[in-house]
């Protein structure tokens, strides 16, 4: 279904054997963005904000990196442990390329986990935090531990191609359920995600919306964490999902839940093969 993504591979990476790990290497987020802009000169979505494109080298999200790194290596929590033994899927403490290969199935929990779910899992299991501790309960805003850690960890995958694994049957099941969810209509206005992200160049009020079937638009769309200029805060993939579902007039979505995981499994897959912009800068 995603042959389109394969055709676009040369933009950022050497073509590897189909089905193997991504071949890309780390690239500065601004370089990734510039290449996408060149590859898609007619994309209204990618080119909509000249201001943001200009500001990209000074993306305020970059200011979170140092704090995030410190938090990652610091011995913290009731167990006085660092996060170095956290396995994001590529081995304990391996961060390079890990973010773009999530969600994935984890043997130790027996389930498919998205990035934020996994991070919270590690902070609880390794560091001993509980749901009530602000270190894990505060999910949003540049001042939260979670967003600082997220930005630092995600940045280690900048320029790598999205490549969420689908080898485990549960990974495939969650991705496929995510696809159904993308088209599942409901709520007070009968919306599904495709209502606003199904066509190219469509606008909701002043925003030009990314199209899910254009993987070079979609890689930017799913490139979170990102500094949202309009909110003056760094935001996560999960925060974006919550915002769209709220605008859709569906029920309120809760953090660390499998609907998030399924949607992210599907949307990261829809950006497969394209390089991630981590962190990005958005309207």
């Amino acid at each position, binding site marked *: 279904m995603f042959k389109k993504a394969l055709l676009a591979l040369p933009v950022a990476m050497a073509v590897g054997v189909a089905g193997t790990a991504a071949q890309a290497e780390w690239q500065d987020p601004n370089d990734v963005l510039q290449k996408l802009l060149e590859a898609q000169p007619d994309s209204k979505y990618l080119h909509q904000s000249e201001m943001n494109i200009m500001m990209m080298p000074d993306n305020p999200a970059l200011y979170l990196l140092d704090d995030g790194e410190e938090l990652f290596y610091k011995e913290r929590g009731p167990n006085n442990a660092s996060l170095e033994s956290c396995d994001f899927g590529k081995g304990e403490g391996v961060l390079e390329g890990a973010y773009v290969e999530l969600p994935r199935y984890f043997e130790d929990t027996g389930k498919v986990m998205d990035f934020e779910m996994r991070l919270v899992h590690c902070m609880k299991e390794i560091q001993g935090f509980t749901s009530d501790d602000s270190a894990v309960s505060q999910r949003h805003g540049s001042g939260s531990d979670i967003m600082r850690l997220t930005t630092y960890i995600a940045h280690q995958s900048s320029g790598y191609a999205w490549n969420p694994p689908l080898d485990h049957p*549960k990974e495939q099941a969650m991705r496929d359920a995510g696809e*159904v*969810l993308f088209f599942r209509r409901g709520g007070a206005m009968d919306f*599904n995600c495709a209502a606003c992200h199904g066509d190219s160049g*469509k606008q909701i009020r002043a925003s030009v919306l990314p199209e899910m079937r254009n993987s070079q638009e979609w890689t930017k769309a799913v490139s979170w964490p990102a500094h949202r200029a309009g909110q003056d805060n760094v935001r996560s993939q999960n925060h974006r999902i*919550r915002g769209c579902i*709220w605008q859709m007039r569906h*029920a309120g979505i*809760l953090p660390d839940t499998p609907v998030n995981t399924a949607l992210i499994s599907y949307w990261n897959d829809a950006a497969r093969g394209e390089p991630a912009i981590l962190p990005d800068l958005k309207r």
Partner: protein
Amino acid sequence: MFNRRILTAAVVVSASAALAGCDQFFQDTSDREVDITQMSPEELAEYLVLETNSFRLDQDVQEGGTARERMQQDEIQALCSLEGSPNSETAGQVVAAARASYERPDGGVQLGDWRRGAELARSGYGYRVGHNNDDHGTREPGANCYACHQMDPAETTYGTIGPSLANYGRERGTDESVLNYVHEVVSNPHQYFPCTYMPRFGRNFLTEEQISHVMAYLLDPESPVNQ
């Protein structure tokens, strides 16, 4: 392009019957109790939405009832959960369901006050729940038309998901057949456009009075939409 298979009520019932008692599994550290690989994607999606505590389903919502009812699909939502356009059979079912549920207001379709309609058309407030709840007691819910349509040609920010409605009334007039048609579209557009992305504003969303104001904004010769 593929048309997503329609999820029938029967599938939902059998999925939840088979899974009864396992509601909590995603909150445990292990999902060994339920094998998600044994479900079809449609069954799994339904299960994730309704039975894994992913949503605040018990929350009260503005139209009455709970958020759970919002997330349980009605016939039109289920039939229209597909990528692209419906095939002719599905389209026929959708149109029939939409016509069956449509009600013309008592006393016929009337135009209200276009000034009130202008405010409603611009407002995106209302019916949002979750981490933040729209309070209809302090502010009237709006109609969101500008999110998708150009209307007043002088307004510069508008969405493009729907066609431009600039000069809509000037081109059509306000005779009874026009009033009836526009009311049918605003109340339940699936009667003419099966599986459209335009919401059904007559279904627990706008009051008949609000619809009359929005219609005046579209059709009244005095309205800025028609200047």
